[in-house]
């Protein structure tokens, strides 16, 4: 095992190198080294299902469950008028364009289970046209918790039990 100073030096170096290489994915706005992030570039992923998150950090815990095979969309935050964050400040227009262009059929809204995250989810559900099914992921998570700090099992359960906000009824 390396000495702590050497390790932190390595870590700092890695972070600098990473931040120099990383840029936003041109499609989902997560971190990417190229034009597209590895998930958007993966042809096995289903482009007709999009999971909406506030920040890139929320993607990892969902990926860890292996339950979700669609693509992501990073909003860059949540609505919060107190902080001056309106719909224009989030990547909602970009999301609506993707939905139309890719014929998206299902939107999984995984914004944080806070009041701001819930408001953002409700706003998005209201913006998309009626033939897209919109489900809300965070229902299985305790209020105030965020995806980043939830364990895999909880996130996995939340994914399976996501509740419908809008769209055709599911089931038989």
């Amino acid at each position, binding site marked *: 095992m390396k000495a702590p100073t050497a390790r932190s030096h390595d870590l700092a170096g890695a972070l600098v190198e990473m931040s120099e290489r990383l840029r936003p994915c041109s499609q989902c706005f997560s971190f990417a080294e190229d034009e597209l992030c590895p998930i958007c570039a993966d042809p096995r992923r289903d482009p007709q299902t999009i999971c909406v998150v506030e920040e890139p950090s929320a993607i990892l815990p969902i990926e860890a469950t292996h339950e979700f095979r669609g693509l992501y969309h990073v909003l860059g935050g949540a609505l*919060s008028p*107190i902080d001056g964050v309106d719909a224009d400040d989030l990547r909602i227009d970009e999301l609506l364009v993707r939905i139309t262009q890719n014929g998206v059929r299902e939107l999984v809204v995984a914004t944080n289970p806070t009041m701001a995250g819930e408001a953002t989810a409700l706003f998005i559900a209201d913006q998309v046209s009626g033939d897209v099914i919109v489900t809300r992921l965070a229902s299985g998570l305790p209020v105030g918790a965020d995806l980043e700090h939830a364990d895999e099992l909880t996130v996995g359960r939340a994914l399976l039990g996501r509740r419908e906000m809008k769209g055709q009824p599911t089931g038989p």
Partner: protein
Amino acid sequence: MTEPWRAWAVSVTDLRCWDRARIDLEPGLVVIWGPNGAGKTSLIEALTMGCLGVSPRTSREAEIVRHGAEAARVELSLDGPDGRRERAIGYAPRRGRRMSIDDAPVRALGEWSVPGAVLVFIPDELRIVKGPPAARRRHLDRLLEASWPGYREASSGYKEAISQRNALLRRVRSGEAGVGELAPWETQMVPLAVEIIRARRQAISDLQGPFQRWLESLGGGPEGQLRLDPSPSSLRDVPDDELEGVIFGFIQERRPRDIGAAQTLSGPHRDDVGLWSGDLDLRSSGSQGEQRTAALALTLAHRDYLSDVAARPILLLDDALSELDPDRRQRVLHAVGDGGQTLITTADPAVAEIARAGSAQVLHIEDGHVAKMG
């Protein structure tokens, strides 16, 4: 029923006239006897602060720090439903409050305070009767935070939704945001408003009987009545299960006005609690004496309610008995002698004498000293 709340000891440092004092408290009735100006009310204030974190006498907290001192401090050893805790709160004018439980710092006042632990009556502080609606709302909310599961969360969620909506109304008015962004906040706000209204209705209805009985036995007449004055007033006759739809309706309807004012003009954040004696609105038209009697009756009604649904709170009565005739005084003393802890201050040696004849603990206070009187 849960064990009653009980204070074992309170210590104060640099609080008003006290530089340092510690009193050990017996369960049951404790009478603090001493001349006016000896600092009796400051001890009531200290106990209240040790439970709630705020003074019952003033909202200008700098007042509580002894002249020439940097900070005031209260330590309270308190027994409650989750056992005995050593609570401490310090206040310094520029640094604000610092709180701890069992020596571990607690940042948020909401996490530190125990709203159901204490009820306080101070005759010079009648905000709960004649103050603004906010004072009566806060008084009722404190009762519900201690007794209604989920009330604290509903209440803080509602406040958050209102602040977000108000900020958005401002931005809509100035053209920075669209009307369409209001709905997501309103959708979340309405169920919380319904929860708050249901809880308040239930509490008012449960308090009505005890309030009426207490007002009558304290000489305030047989027609005491508590009433929730909802905002908007049209909600008064709406049944619980129709509230949600009705509130959604008026929010939509009043949007233009709310946008014009850049704030949410009606809702449970504007409720009031009416205190009546027959046709007399005690809030605005009661005499000083009537308002005092009503405040004491309401405090005792809260005690009955909390004893039934949660745990019996500690009752702090500052100089509450001197204006009552011997018969009514006896009634109050009898009622509070039912197992809970009650602190009564008095300058009247006769009250101290009556209490000593019972099994009360009597503490004599003079010139910044506390002496046990057996």
